[in-house]
């Protein structure tokens, strides 16, 4: 009996240890992939003797980052600022419009085709118009970031609200709930996971929008830095800009994901334990 339970205990220990190892590996995996990618890159550039102005090796990029860290820093902060400003506006407008579209079939029918058409327009094409209206300055990147990240938020919030189960609506309506009650008590909380899923997309595309505008209307920011660098054939600096941009994108994504997990754990808990713990 004692021997049995000892054996069972050992087996349990072994299983727990295996699970811990797997979790550690999962946490380290992204870093290993990134390291491996840069390693391969370094190897290919050195082995085939690729010229620096075609494809700089990672160590050239690191050198460029160290050399130009001050302008890189300043321009990243400018871009970050425009991105977050546009993104904030997109959240505000997106949530309001999403609620309107999700809760009213009339608004949906009227606005959806317009929104689709609008979303199909490449935002690069809009930047020159923005320059005519606002001049070269801080506004074109902010507005481009807003325009590009607005759509996913609207669609997701609207979907969350529009897909409330009819039975649940019946329960509340039979109690004398007003349409506003249904949106506040059920629609909005239900839309939250959709909303946060869209934030993760929106925050990364907002970045893209801001940088596009900065490259078309070079005033400040990482987009302008890369334009200037490429016009001087300083390819390592261009890549340095790309690396910094990618890094900022990941950080913003992480922040969005962190907030998502803290606020809408109920959406993943219970269905997929791994999502909540292992993530």
């Amino acid at each position, binding site marked *: 009996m004692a021997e049995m339970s000892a054996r069972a205990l050992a087996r349990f220990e072994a299983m727990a240890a295996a699970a811990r190892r797997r979790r550690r590996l999962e946490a380290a995996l992204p870093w290993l992939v990134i390291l491996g990618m840069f390693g391969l890159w370094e190897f290919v550039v050195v082995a085939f003797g690729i010229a620096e102005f075609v494809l700089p090796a990672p160590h050239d990029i690191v050198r460029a980052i160290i050399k130009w860290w001050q302008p890189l820093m300043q321009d990243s902060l400018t871009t970050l600022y425009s991105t977050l400003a546009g993104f904030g506006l997109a959240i505000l407008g997106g949530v309001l419009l999403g609620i309107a579209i999700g809760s009213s079939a009339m608004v949906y029918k009227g606005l959806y085709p317009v929104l689709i058409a609008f979303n199909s327009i490449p935002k690069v094409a809009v930047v020159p118009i923005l320059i005519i209206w606002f001049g070269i300055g801080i506004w074109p990147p902010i507005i481009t970031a807003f325009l590009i990240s607005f759509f996913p938020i609207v669609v997701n919030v609207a979907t969350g609200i529009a897909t409330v189960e009819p039975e649940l609506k019946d*329960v509340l*309506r*039979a*109690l004398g709930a007003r349409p506003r009650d249904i949106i506040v*008590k059920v629609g909005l*909380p239900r839309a939250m996971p959709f909303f946060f899923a869209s934030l993760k997309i929106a925050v990364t595309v907002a970045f893209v929008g801001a940088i596009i505008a900065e490259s078309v209307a070079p005033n400040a920011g990482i987009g302008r830095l890369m334009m200037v660098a490429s016009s001087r054939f300083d390819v390592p600096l261009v890549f340095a800009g790309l690396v910094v941009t990618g890094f900022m994108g990941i950080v913003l994504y992480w922040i969005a994901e962190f907030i998502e997990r803290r606020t809408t754990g109920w959406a993943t808990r219970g269905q997929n334990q791994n999502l909540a713990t292992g993530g």
Partner: protein
Amino acid sequence: MRPFVEIDRVAMRYGGVDGTLALQDCSLCVYEGEFVAVVGPSGCGKSTLMRLVSGLWPATEGNVIVDGREVAGPVNIVGMAFQSPTLLPWRRILENVMLPLEVTPQHRHRLRSERAAYEARARELLRLVGLEGFERKYPYQLSGGMQQRTSLCRALIHEPKLLMLDEPFSALDVFTREELWEVMQDLWLARKPTVILVTHDLREAVFLADRVLVMSARPGRIIAERRVDFPRPRTLETTYSPEFQQLAADLRRYIAAARTGEEVSL
């Protein structure tokens, strides 16, 4: 006893002139404090009937009178439960049960000042259905049967005069279902609301109801009714008695006939 729900030659057509005719010439009367079960072939308009009584949809023809007043919109004295528990996954069990108090016009203004009393009432209901100790759990932490019990509590928390149950037990296994019949009977005996229960399970209908109404195939109308006079509280033993079996068999014949459209003799 006074009539509480009166339906007089009601017709219901979905989606315009050429739409589906779900109910036609449907009349029934449910008395105050009575427990009525409605059975009938699938798609005959039972859920439609529930929507008309609770005022969620207007009838195409005819009158619906609830509690002495003609129904023109949501009647807001109703509690409802459906086949799926439809709980809110982001709310704890206690908060789910208390949801109706936040929206019904009679209670929403008093909720803040009398929160403690309302909460005690919710805990008492949860205790009655055997969910004591689960108040602070989330729905996903409960089994399907426990979620359905929660849904029943939510339907009862505002002490509705009328309870509408649309196949509330049909997604459960036989044992849980029979257990919940007894729970349902206790809940009803404690306060005697008027209940309309839609079900596919004839034993369930006979066990719970004072009267069983049988509907025809679509367009639905009431084609037969049987009184059930077994004394209360009924137990599962009751369901094995010959009289009980006979009654269930009779109802089964009515429904078989209704499906083929034959006339049934009472």
